[in-house]
């Protein structure tokens, strides 16, 4: 079997999709091993993990590989999404595969979230309390949703069983089905996306090399290096197991898993209806709509699509890197808890007004680069995507490193 030489260049994809697959396989292997020791009940969960780490040969290593694979998988998957987007790999035949990829991302996040509770230590218990409470804030369906997921009114036996079932059965099955479909569709589309003209078949336009040894060797190297990296990290940094969960004592601060801290940070700046419902829905709708917008042609294959695309992406990234921290600081120290219109209902003062400001800012940015920097639609959408991606990354970083006791803004070394 022959593949285009250009497609297997490391810097074309950085092997991110393949890395995600390796990490998922590691997770499944270590996960299955732990299933023979873990007991999914509030009374036994913590002890079963503690004993597994202490008494089972390589127990600590197995759990460590599982923990770090999960924490690496999420950024790797997001970077893969970013790469596919920036190389325009969602046009034409690849449209539905973008959606399948989003489905995989959803189940990866669900898997991480459900797994987070299982150790039943203080971190786990309160992080999931926070997250399910945030869910309950969704107007209308929130309470019902929270009740269904928690399996009752309090986090307890039913919750751990729900989460366990989702974590070891539902999400792995969904991932296996979706990943197979995802890989098959990539083959049907002719492999990794490459630059081509309107009538080219990329398979004919490039010099090809044999799969074995060229691609196989590269994939093996990436796999082994990644595996080695995960092993080293797992050996040096043990997976945490805090104090057993105590429903009477909440830690200070109580934070969601790091990949949801962007949303917890949003909740600090926006009223619940906007932070938990409106904004996530808009983000989801935006992601789903990416392959279906009306572009100026199916430009694809090169990173950032064009040289101008690259400049605009940098402009967008820098804009977010400056504006978002400024926003966080202003909201914290100038605006304060009363909101943008103190005295008015929280929904307006902390919700509608800041949301309208952000929406105005984003729309203004789009109009600016279209009119004054003469971006075509593809470049403009790309710039907007980078703007929002970096903004969310900054919010996540803020939540992880700059929020201390009482969720006040602190320097990381003050935490």
């Amino acid at each position, binding site marked *: 079997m022959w593949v285009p030489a250009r497609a297997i260049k490391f810097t074309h994809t950085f092997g991110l999709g393949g890395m995600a697959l390796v990490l998922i396989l590691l997770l499944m292997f270590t996960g299955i091993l732990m299933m023979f020791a873990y007991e999914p009940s509030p009374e036994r969960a913590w002890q079963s993990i503690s004993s597994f780490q202490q008494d089972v040969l390589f127990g600590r290593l197995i759990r460590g590989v599982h923990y770090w694979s999960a924490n690496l998988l999420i950024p790797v998957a997001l970077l893969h999404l970013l790469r596919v987007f920036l190389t325009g790999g969602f046009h034409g035949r690849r449209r539905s595969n973008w959606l399948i990829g989003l489905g995989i991302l959803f189940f990866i996040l669900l898997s991480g979230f459900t797994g987070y509770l299982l150790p039943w230590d203080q971190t786990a218990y309160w992080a999931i309390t926070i997250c399910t409470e945030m869910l309950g804030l969704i107007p209308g369906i929130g309470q019902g949703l929270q*009740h269904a997921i928690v399996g009752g009114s309090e986090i307890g*036996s039913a919750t751990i069983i729900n989460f366990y079932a989702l974590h070891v059965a539902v999400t792995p099955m969904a991932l296996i089905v979706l990943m197979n479909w995802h890989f098959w569709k990539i083959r049907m589309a002719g492999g990794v996306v490459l630059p081509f003209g309107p009538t080219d078949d990329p398979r004919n336009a490039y010099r090809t090399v044999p799969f074995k040894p060229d691609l196989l060797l590269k994939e093996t190297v990436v796999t082994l290096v990644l595996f080695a990296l995960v092993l080293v990290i797992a050996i040096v940094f043990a997976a945490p197991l805090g104090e057993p969960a105590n429903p009477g004592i909440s830690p200070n601060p109580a934070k969601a898993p790091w990949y949801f801290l962007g949303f917890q940070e949003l909740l600090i700046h926006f009223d619940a209806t906007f932070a938990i419902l409106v904004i996530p829905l808009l983000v989801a709708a935006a992601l789903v709509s990416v392959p279906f917008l009306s572009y100026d042609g199916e430009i694809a294959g090169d990173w950032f699509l064009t040289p101008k695309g690259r400049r605009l992406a940098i402009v967008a990234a820098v804009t977010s890197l400056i504006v978002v921290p400024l926003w966080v600081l202003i909201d914290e120290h100038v605006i304060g808890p009363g909101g943008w219109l103190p005295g008015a209902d929280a929904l307006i003062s902390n919700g509608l007004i800041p949301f309208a400001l952000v929406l105005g800012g984003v729309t203004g940015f789009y109009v600016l680069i279209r009119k004054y920097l003469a971006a075509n639609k593809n470049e403009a959408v790309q710039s907007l995507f980078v703007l929002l991606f970096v903004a969310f990354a900054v919010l996540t970083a803020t939540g992880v490193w700059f929020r201390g006791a009482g969720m006040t803004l602190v320097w990381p070394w003050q935490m």
Partner: protein
Amino acid sequence: MADVDPVRRSFLARMMQVLGGVAVLEAGWIAVSALVPRRRTTPLMDEPGVTIAGPVQRFEIGSVTAFGDGKFYLARLEDGGFLAVHRKCTHLGCSVPWIADEKRFACPCHASAFDIHGDVINAPAPRPLDLFPVTIENGIVKVDTGRLIRRKSFEPSQAVRA
């Protein structure tokens, strides 16, 4: 092949589609039924019930006593009335300790604070602490931890007197 009746064939094809759809719906119904009633038959959840707090005289005016198992604090107000406040912060669900020196509930998670009545002193809590119904029978204070009462603010009528 001779004599294929297109009308009969299309009818049978349509029937297969419809019946297949019904089968899928039935499977879905079975799945949902398996998942839903766990809320009603909750042997897995701690059974809520009535906690017997103790005789009325045991609780001094202005005192706040923690009941870990019942997940509430029993507050005895200035006028002798009893309030059983749920220990769960109304912001994002953390357990709120009573700080006797400051005479307030101070949530460690995001700095919400409540007074002895459960009213909000400090944001971001959106509403006062919820209450459990209190009854006093034969001089014994009892708290029903099976029912939660939400309120917009403290009203003196919410406190129960002997």
